[in-house]
């Protein structure tokens, strides 16, 4: 029962619930800038959870993980995404969701699903944080749902990063964190991914004039009777000027 835990353990559970709440806010948020800020908040709350777990479980290497989380997911990646969306002049963009309420209920269904999935682990585990495993899986799955339902590239990147948040979260609460070298590697990977996504955005913008990834599915020959201007003006292959 909750009342029997120490105040620190209760705080872990409270902040874990808040991380889940930020996932839902991201699911419902259609504007670009608030989406990025919510992602930063999720990172911050996750760092708080990590610090609390480090304090309760006396695993000092988790402080390093928390510092990495703050540095990367609260400051650097949101800043990169923010700068990119200002550069590409889409900071006021918003996309229309087809069924916002249905989407949120889908998120709630994912929470129930992850509770059901994690029930055997919870029964086996003796950790104080075992109840939050379900929440961490839910954060992962909601990140995936975000990637599935959104059309803009920025929202999909946020969904991807949020999934990574969920992974890190479940590592922290189920085994008190991965080995530090793995965590460093993952953090570096995420950073590289963020930079690659930036390049990808710019190319997408250049070639499609929009960040709507649904347009990648269409063949330009099938839709447009007239060829695109750049294919006309482009020099024939094999000739160098």
């Amino acid at each position, binding site marked *: 029962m909750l009342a029997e835990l120490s105040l620190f353990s209760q705080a872990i559970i409270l902040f874990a619930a808040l991380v889940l709440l930020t996932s839902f806010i991201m699911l419902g948020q259609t504007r670009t800038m608030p989406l990025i800020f919510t992602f930063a908040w999720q990172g911050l709350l996750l760092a708080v959870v990590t610090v609390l777990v480090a304090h309760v479980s006396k695993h000092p290497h988790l402080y390093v993980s928390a510092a990495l989380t703050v540095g990367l997911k609260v400051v650097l990646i949101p800043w990169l995404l923010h700068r990119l969306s200002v550069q590409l002049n889409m900071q006021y963009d918003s996309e229309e969701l087809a069924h916002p309420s249905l989407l949120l209920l889908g998120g709630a269904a994912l929470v129930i699903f992850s*509770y059901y999935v994690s029930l055997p682990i919870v029964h086996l585990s003796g950790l104080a944080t075992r*109840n939050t495993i379900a929440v961490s899986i839910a954060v992962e799955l909601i990140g995936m749902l975000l990637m599935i339902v959104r059309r803009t590239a920025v929202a999909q990147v946020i969904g991807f990063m949020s999934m990574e948040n969920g992974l890190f979260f479940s590592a922290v609460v189920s085994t008190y964190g991965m080995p530090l070298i793995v965590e460093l590697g993952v953090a570096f990977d995420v950073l590289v991914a963020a930079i690659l996504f930036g390049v990808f955005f710019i190319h997408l913008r250049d070639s499609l004039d929009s960040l709507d990834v649904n347009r990648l599915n269409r063949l330009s020959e099938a839709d447009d009777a007239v060829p695109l201007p750049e294919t006309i003006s482009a020099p024939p292959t094999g000739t160098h000027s």
Partner: protein
Amino acid sequence: MDSQLIAWAHAALQALLFVAAAPLLTGWVNRVKCHLQNRAAAPVWQPYRDLAKLLRKRMVLAENASWLFRDVPYIVFGAMLLAAAVVPLVAVRLPTAAIADVIVLVGFFALARFFTALAGLDIGTAFGGMGASREMMVSALAEPAMLMAVFTLSMTAATTNLSIATEYILQAGLVLRPSFLFALLGLAMVAVAECSRIPVDNPATHLELTMLHEAMILEYSGRYLALIEWASQIKLMIYAVLIVDFFFPWGIARDFSAAALAISAVAVTAKLMLLGVVLVAWETVLAKKRLFRVPQFLGYAFLLSLLGVLSHVVLETGG
């Protein structure tokens, strides 16, 4: 037997106090709102003056008004009076709380709303019908969210009796419950929608196309209007006291001694005043939403309440 009698007397007195203090809360909210918006403020007891004026005035009834139209103000006021008797204001252990639990409380609200909507339809004006349909839309979405929030609290306290639930929360002391946080947010959003406040409805507007609650009671005047206005003030007070009782119950009296009751009265007044300021701040920073945005707003309220239930099951009961 004697202590039973005292308890009933206290419950009756408390319900009367509830009804008598409700316009004061509205007056306080209006006054703070005026101050925050740089307007000259009416005194706190202005709602009492309005009610007295309306009670003195002659009524104008439409020719085709049926018995329903004439009885609805009494039904609405009666339902709110009964609802107010159930909610612990200054003391827990109310004998009335054993008669009607929190689900019946939601039922009282539904009853009042149903009859108000019928009265809106009764006269046959366009605004009455429009207001009734809008109000029913809002309430159909708000009620599940409210019930979910209430279930969260009842699951924690293992009872739907408001008095016992409040006492349980009081005894548990400071426990950080994520489910309570979600339920608080959900219940606050429902309260905003149900009490016809911004962003769902604007209590000050008389512009026909935007009003929800006002459109239904447009045909009422005099004593009937006074009863309906008073009932909606009691409703606001009930929601405020519910939030205070469930989430910040500290200070409420657990016995009927004079000292405990005095402390409790001071505490509950301070908490309600604070809650009024929060409500005003919320209303000042937000604008009224379009009607078709309201389902989304209430969808979020439902989601928060649902998250409350889920986080209670997932996080708090333990595997």
